[in-house]
C-alpha cells in the first residue's frame, strides 16, 4: 500500500508447498512507484503464529537487500542508537488469534519498481482430524497478477481436501481450481483484475480475508508412516480405529469476581455442552473455586444420564464471587482423583485428567506462582494430566503453560469474545478422547541420533504424534521401529521396519522439489521442543535448551524468540539507514500486546522513524 493512485501493484503471489505436513510459503509482491517523486511503499503480510520466518528480501532498482538471521542480543546492538532517540515501531505484530503481521516500508524512487519476498515455514498440526493451511490476503486494490497456489505432496495419500475462503462469492468460487490425485493436490486461485473488483468500475477489491485449505491424509495402520529422506527420518503416528480410553476428569472452575458478566455465562454454557458430551463410561467431578473451594460432590461420579442431569442443574447455579485460590482448588482435584483411585472407584484402564479454567491470578491462599507449580507437580507426581484454560487477558499464561507441561498436559488461551463458549468446547473436544496413554516410539540407539521427543503421555483422537531424527548411517536400508502404548483393553505394541522412500517413484513427474525438507522439519520440531524445555525444565536444562535452540535457529535461519532478522534498508535521502528487525513474538508478548495496558513496557521489535510530522508537546495524566 502507499498513496492511492501513485503506486501500481503489479503482482501479489502466495506460493505454498507442503511436503509431508511441512509447509514452505513464499509471499511475493511487486509494485511500481508511478509518482514523479520518491515515496514510502509498505508491504504488510500476515503469517500463522506457529510459523517461523526464514527469509525476507527487497529488490529496489536492481539492488537486492536480504535479511539475515542473527542472535537477538546482537541484533539489538544495531538499533540501540535508534532506541535512545526514542524511535520505535514493531515489524512483527499480533494480528488476531492465529496470525502475526509482518510489515515493512521502504522509500522507492520515482518510476521505480520494488519487489518484496517473505518466506516462512511451519509444521502443520493435525487437530480434530485435519490439517489447516491458512493464508490471509488483503491487497488494498485489484492487482494485475494475483495468485494463490498450493501444492501438497503427501506420500501417505490424501484422504480429503477442502478449500474455502471468507471472501469467496458465487462469482469467485468457480475460480478455485483443485486437482487431487492419490498423493498430490494442486490448488490455485487466480482471479483477473476485473474479477477482483467490487463492481465493474470500482477500485475496491473483493479479495480480503482468509483462504483456507483443510485436508487429511490416509491413516497408516499400526506403526504409522515413516519417511526417510537425505539422512533424516520423520515418523507420523496416528493409527485409525483405536478404541477410546475412558477418562476420569475433574473440572476445576474459577468463579471469582473477575469472571463476572460474560465470562461466567460463557463458562456455564460451555460446561453444559461439555457435560452433555461425556461418555457414559467416563467419570467426572466439578470443583468450583474462588477464595473457597467447593466440590459439587466429594468424589467422582459416573457419567450416567442422571448424574449428568444433576451436574447440569448445579452448573446452572454457577455464580461469580470472591478472590482466586488456584493452589487449593487444584490440590483438591488431585486428592479427589487419588482417593477415588485408592478406593478402586475408578476403572483400572482409564486416564485421569484435571481441566482447570481460570481467568485471573491467584490472590488468595498460596499466591506465589512458583510455589503453586511446585505443589501441584509434587501432588500429581506424574500420575495424571493437567490441562489449563486461561480465560481472557489478565491471566498469566506462561504460569499455566509451564504448570500444564510439568504435568503431562497443555494450556490454551481462551479469548474473550462472543465465541468463547466454542473455544472452550473445542479445546475439550481435542483432549477429551485419549486413544493411548504413555506412548513410546523407539528406534535403535545405534542407528539414530538427535531424536525429537519420543515419549508422549497421550495420543488424542484426531491428533498425531510426530517424531524426527537423524540417521547415523546414511546408507541404512531398514530402520527398526517399535511403538508401545497403553490402550483401552490391551497394551498397544507394534514393531516393523521402515526404508527410505524413493521419491522419484512416488512423484515421477516432479523435479527435485523435496530437497532438505525432512531435515528442516526435524530442525523446526527440535527448536519448538527446546523452546518449551527452556521454559519448564530445571535451571541447567533451561540454559542448555536455550543455547541449543539458538544455535539451531541460526543454523537453519529460523526467526524464533531467540533470534531476529535484520534487513538493512537502503539509505534515505537524508543519509540515514536504520536497520529493520523482525522478531518472533512469544505467547506472553502477544497477550501483553492484546491486553494493551497503559504502563506495560514496549517490546523493541524494531526501531525506526515513525513520526514525520511535528506537533506541539503534550503533557497529560490519565488512567491505566
Amino acid at each position, binding site marked *: 500500500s502507499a498513496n492511492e493512485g501513485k503506486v501500481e501493484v503489479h503482482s501479489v503471489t502466495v506460493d505454498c508447498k507442503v511436503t509431508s505436513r511441512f509447509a514452505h510459503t513464499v509471499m511475493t509482491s511487486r509494485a511500481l512507484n508511478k509518482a514523479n517523486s520518491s515515496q514510502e511503499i509498505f508491504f504488510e503480510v500476515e503469517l500463522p503464529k506457529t510459523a517461523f520466518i526464514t527469509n525476507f528480501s527487497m529488490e529496489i532498482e536492481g539492488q537486492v537487500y536480504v535479511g539475515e538471521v542473527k542472535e537477538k542480543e546482537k541484533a539489538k546492538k544495531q538499533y540501540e542508537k535508534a532506541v535512545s532517540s526514542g524511535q520505535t515501531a514493531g515489524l512483527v505484530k499480533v494480528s488476531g488469534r492465529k496470525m502475526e503481521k509482518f510489515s515493512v516500508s521502504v522509500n522507492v524512487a520515482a518510476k521505480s519498481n520494488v519487489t518484496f519476498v517473505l518466506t516462512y515455514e511451519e509444521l502443520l498440526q493435525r487437530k480434530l482430524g485435519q490439517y489447516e493451511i491458512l493464508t490471509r490476503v488483503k491487497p488494498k486494490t485489484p492487482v494485475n497478477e494475483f495468485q494463490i497456489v498450493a501444492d501438497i505432496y503427501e506420500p501417505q495419500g490424501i484422504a480429503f481436501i477442502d478449500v474455502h475462503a471468507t471472501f469467496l462469492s458465487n462469482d469467485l468460487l468457480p475460480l478455485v481450481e483443485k486437482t487431487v490425485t492419490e498423493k498430490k493436490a494442486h490448488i490455485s486461485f487466480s482471479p483477473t483484475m476485473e474479477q477482483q473488483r467490487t463492481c465493474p468500475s470500482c477500485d475496491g477489491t473483493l479479495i480480503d480475508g482468509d483462504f483456507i485449505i483443510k485436508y487429511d491424509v490416509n491413516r497408516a495402520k499400526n506403526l504409522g508412516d515413516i519417511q526417510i529422506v537425505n539422512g533424516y527420518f520423520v515418523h507420523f503416528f496416528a493409527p485409525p480405529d483405536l478404541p477410546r480410553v475412558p477418562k476420569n476428569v475433574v473440572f476445576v472452575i474459577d468463579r471469582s469476581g473477575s469472571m463476572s458478566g460474560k465470562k461466567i455465562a460463557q463458562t456455564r454454557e460451555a460446561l453444559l455442552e461439555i457435560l452433555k458430551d461425556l461418555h457414559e463410561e467416563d467419570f467426572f467431578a466439578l470443583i468450583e473455586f474462588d477464595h473457597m473451594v467447593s466440590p459439587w460432590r466429594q468424589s467422582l461420579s459416573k457419567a450416567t444420564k442422571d448424574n449428568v442431569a444433576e451436574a447440569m442443574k448445579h452448573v446452572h447455579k454457577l455464580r461469580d464471587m470472591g478472590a482466586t485460590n488456584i493452589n487449593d482448588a487444584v490440590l483438591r482435584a488431585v486428592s479427589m482423583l487419588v482417593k477415588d483411585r485408592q478406593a478402586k472407584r475408578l476403572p483400572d484402564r482409564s486416564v485421569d485428567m484435571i481441566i482447570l479454567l481460570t481467568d485471573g491470578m491467584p490472590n488468595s491462599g498460596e499466591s506465589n506462582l512458583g510455589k503453586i507449580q511446585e505443589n501441584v507437580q509434587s501432588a500429581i507426581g506424574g500420575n495424571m494430566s493437567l490441562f489449563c484454560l486461561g480465560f481472557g487477558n489478565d491471566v498469566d499464561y506462561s504460569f499455566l503453560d509451564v504448570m500444564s507441561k510439568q504435568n503431562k498436559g497443555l494450556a490454551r488461551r481462551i479469548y474473550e469474545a462472543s465465541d468463547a463458549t466454542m473455544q472452550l468446547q473445542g479445546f475439550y473436544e481435542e483432549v477429551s478422547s485419549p486413544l493411548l496413554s504413555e506412548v513410546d516410539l523407539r528406534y535403535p540407539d545405534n542407528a539414530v541420533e538427535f531424536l525429537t521427543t519420543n515419549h508422549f503421555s497421550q495420543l488424542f483422537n484426531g491428533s498425531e504424534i510426530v517424531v524426527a531424527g537423524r540417521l547415523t548411517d546414511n546408507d541404512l536400508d531398514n530402520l527398526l521401529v517399535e511403538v508401545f502404548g497403553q490402550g483401552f483393553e490391551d497394551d498397544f505394541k507394534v514393531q516393523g521396519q521402515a526404508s527410505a522412500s524413493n521419491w522419484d517413484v512416488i512423484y515421477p513427474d516432479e523435479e527435485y522439489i523435496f530437497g532438505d525438507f525432512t531435515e528442516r522439519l526435524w530442525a523446526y520440531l527440535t527448536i519448538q521442543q527446546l523452546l518449551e524445555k527452556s521454559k519448564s525444565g530445571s535451571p541447567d536444562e533451561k540454559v542448555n535448551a536455550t543455547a541449543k535452540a539458538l544455535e539451531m535457529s541460526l543454523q537453519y535461519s529460523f526467526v524464533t524468540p531467540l533470534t531476529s532478522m535484520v534487513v538493512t534498508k537502503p539509505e534515505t535521502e537524508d543519509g540515514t539507514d536504520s536497520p529493520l528487525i523482525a522478531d518472533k513474538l512469544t505467547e506472553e508478548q502477544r497477550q501483553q500486546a492484546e491486553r494493551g495496558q*497503559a504502563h506495560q513496557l514496549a517490546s523493541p521489535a524494531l526501531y525506526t522513524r515513525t*513520526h514525520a510530522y511535528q506537533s506541539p508537546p503534550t*503533557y497529560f*495524566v*490519565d488512567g491505566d
Partner: protein
Amino acid sequence: PHFMIELPDRGDALCFNINDKPGTIFTLVRDPESGILVNGQIIGDKKIPPDGKINTYFWRFGIIHQTLGVRLEVSTREISVFQDGKRVKLLWSDTASLKGPNVDLLVTKDRSLTVTLKDSVKFVILLHKVWEKHPYHRDYLGFYTLDSHLLSPSVHGLLGQFYHGIEYEVTDLRPGEVPEKPDATMYVKGQELNVTRGWQRDFRRDVKNGENVPCWFIHSNGTGLIDGDETDYIVSGLF
C-alpha cells in the same frame, strides 16, 4: 494514574506513574503569577482486583483561574462552572458548549470536556466510562494540556513543572529485567536514573483503546524526574 510528557521535537516521551491512597489530592498545575491552579483527586477500584494491585485514577478535578474569577469542578458525575457568583451545571450525558468572555467550554457527550481559559491555558478532560456493574473498575478522568505556552516560567505542579521543557540525555542502553524491555541510564535534573523503555496510552483520538506512545519509564513514582517527591504535591482540598 500515568503521567506522560510528550516531546515531539525530540521524537520522544517520558512517563511515570503516581500512586497513593485513594482520596489523595494532587496539584497538577500551579501558576502563582497567572493565578491558575489545577488539583485532582484520586479514587481506587471498587474492591481489590484478583491481581492484588490497587489501581488509582483521577475522578475529580478542581480548576481555578483567580485573575479571571473562574472556578470549575469536574467529576465523573458532573461539571460545574462557578463565575461571578453563579453556578452553571453541565452533564456528561449532553453535548453542550458554553462561550463566555473568559472561558469557553465544550462538552462532547460522554466523552470529553475542552476548556479554554482566556490568554492562559487550554486543556481537555476525558471521561472514561466503565461498565456500571464492573466488579472492580469505575469511571475516571484524564487531563490533557493542549496549550500552556502563555503560563509563566514559575508554573509548577506534577504536570506544570514540565511545561517549559525538560533537558535530559539517555545513554547506556542495556538488557532489562525482561530481555525485550531494555533499560537505560537517564541524566536529568543533575541525577542519574535507571529508566526502562515502555509505552503509555494517549486516549485523545480513541477514548476506548487509546494509542500507544513509546516513552522512557521513570520508576518509583517518577523519583528523580519530578522535583521533590510525590508527597510534595499532596494538598488537603480541591481548591
